């Protein structure tokens, strides 16, 4: 009983936090709300007997991704100051689509009563996780590590600074908006 109430409370908090992520006018605040949501999700994992995963979630998501996102926000600001504007557009269409999606899935869930039946399986231990990663699914494990390497290299390659005069890959030149920011433009070339 208490478990249910606790779970319900945590669920509500997570949901509210998520809503703040998408509705916050301030980009920094939105990123921080994301961190909160991820943290709360970690708590949910813990409640679902996935303690290792909860730890990994905190480390990677909250500590890594959130941080990265905040860095991204900081590096791409139009003007100085902490306030970063983030407007929202087309709200009715978004509400409709999201609502329809949720409605559809919820209906599907509701129509499947056998979801809640069945025995509860044994708790997954770190031992099980280790065995699964390194014995049963070792190939996927290795491939993912390769993928991470590629992603790191790729991100670095894409975003590195270029000599003046070099082409920015994949972009058509546009006249740069006048700004006082210190962000360096690629080159002061004539735009088409």
């Amino acid at each position: 009983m208490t478990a249910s109430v606790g779970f319900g409370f945590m669920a509500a908090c997570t949901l509210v936090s998520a809503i703040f992520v998408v509705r916050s006018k301030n980009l920094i605040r939105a990123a921080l709300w994301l961190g909160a949501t991820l943290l709360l999700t970690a708590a949910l994992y813990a409640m679902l007997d996935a303690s290792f995963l909860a730890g990994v979630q905190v480390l990677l998501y909250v500590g890594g991704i959130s941080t990265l996102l905040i860095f991204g926000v900081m590096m791409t600001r139009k003007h100085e100051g902490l306030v970063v504007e983030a407007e929202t557009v087309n709200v009715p269409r978004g509400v409709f689509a999201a609502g329809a999606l949720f409605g559809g899935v919820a209906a599907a869930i509701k129509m499947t009563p056998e979801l809640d039946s069945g025995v509860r399986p044994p708790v997954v231990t770190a031992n099980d996780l280790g065995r699964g990663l390194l014995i049963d699914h070792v190939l996927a494990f290795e491939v993912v590590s390769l993928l991470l390497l590629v992603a790191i290299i790729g991100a670095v390659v894409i975003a590195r600074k270029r000599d003046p005069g070099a082409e920015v890959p994949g972009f058509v030149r546009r006249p740069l908006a006048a700004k006082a920011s210190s962000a360096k433009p690629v080159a002061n070339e004539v735009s088409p």
Partner: protein
Amino acid sequence: MSRPITLALVATLTPALVALFLAATPFIRRRGAPAAALTVLGSVVSFGAAVMLLLSRLGQTGTELFTVPWIRSSARVIAEAGVHVDGVSASMLAVVCFVALCVQVFSLGYMHDEPPADFGRYFTYHALFLFSMNVLVIAPNLLQLFVGWELVGVTSYLLIGFYYKKPSAAHAAVKAFWVTKFADMGILFALLSLFVATGTFAWNVKLEPAVATAVTMLLFLGVVGKSAQFPLHVWLPDAMEGPTPVSALLHAATMVAAGVFLVVRADPLFVQSPTTRTVMLVLGAVTALFAALLALVQTDIKKVLAYSTCSQLGYMVAALGAGSVLAGFFHLTTHAFFKALLFLAAGSAIHAVHSNEIGKMGGLFKKMPLTGAAFAIGALALAGVPGLSGFFSKDLVLEGVEHKLHHVPYVILLATAFLTAFYMGKVVFVAFFGPPSSEQAKHAHEPGWSMKLPLVALAVLAVVAGYFAAPFARLYGEPYHFHFGVGAAVAAALGLGGIALAWTMFGGGKRENPQVMVTVERIAQSRAVNRLYEFGYRRVTLAMADAFAWFDRYVIDGMINWLGYFTIDAGRRARPMQTGFAPDYVLAVVVGAVSLAAWAVLR
């Protein structure tokens, strides 16, 4: 293959080989003289073979047949090609080859002044023509006959338009082709009907009366075109644009006679349709008179002869319509001789005076006695003066027609005989007697031997052919007796009377035009029939063609073009869906996913 078949094939294929060879070797053809030599040589061979064939047939009856399968359809042979030798084809073959040889020899002199390339082209066409005509004559069925028919039509087009740089010649060639092609539709449909009714193209089949009438009427349509009967006669005068020897061969002796030959051949069919025969009788008589009247008012000597040909063909058609097929065929033969003679003699005169107009001639008999004599013999034969070939054949025709349709066609043909004698007399007296009418006429002189020899040969035959009527009839398969009865006497009197009247009006330099000439002249100038065809062509055919062209361009092409424009337009309208704005694409995905979920849930 038996000897007659071989001879027939030699007569037909030799000119074909010559024509093929000359067509394939421009460097020989364009030198002129070699082409002429080859063609004449080939014609000599053909003529020799044809004469041998004729002689071998003299005692025979029955038919020699040789065919090879030609058109197949799912293991059944629909049509055959080959040779059919009997008395009719043997005699016609001999006539055609003889006249062709005479005309070709004459052309050696007449066309001598042409540039070598044209000279060679001319003789190549002659070889082609002889081959085509022979294919027609020896045809074992109506389909091969039709092939020969069309081939001679093509050759006629090529030869009428020989001076193709002259606009009037080019127009005349097209007109001839157009009119005869229209008539050939009749033959085509006749062949189709025949095939549908009997499964063959043979002429000795029994048909239902209605079918027989339909088939023969359609065949007759082809005859009306090819043999220049009213109202499809309009191409023949224009065809005089071709060189005079061509007029002699094609448009007097042989090609225009092909229509008559068709009826002779398909007699078993025509016998089964009295209706068609009646039509033929009436039309033939009308044409004879109509053309004779028009011949009266012509000043161009070739046009006189052209209308005269038209008129005589009317005689033949009338004879065939009356059921006297032998008479029609006999007249065809004698007419071939004396008409070719007349044309060649006229050619000689034209060559000497450098003009076709009889008004520019005059007194030529003194300067060119041989030509004059030849022309006079031809004219007398044509007029039906007793003793000459024309008298016998015309008499046979009149005999056949006499008792049909209450004597009306008979009277018409008698009147025509009078007119024929009259206008020919007029031409003879104006062109060959009396004082010379122009400088050239004063200095006229006889042509060389190549032009004189054929005149002599044809003149001889124009005189004696009549006396071979009996063997000719035997070859045809009917008995013949000549008796100088009332009919013959009347015809002879009319012929001589016509000539006498002409002498009184045109002899010795006089030029009195009788009232009838003035009337006919006025009617002729209205060119009513020609204008009718022009109207039909311009207002009806071209208008329909324009309508169809409009339909094709704007409706049919329009539909296709609309399809194209529609596709482009649809693409243009659909393009804004691609906004490039990523969240829009996400929305699309969401919509799709929700739809799938809904479908899964609601099932």
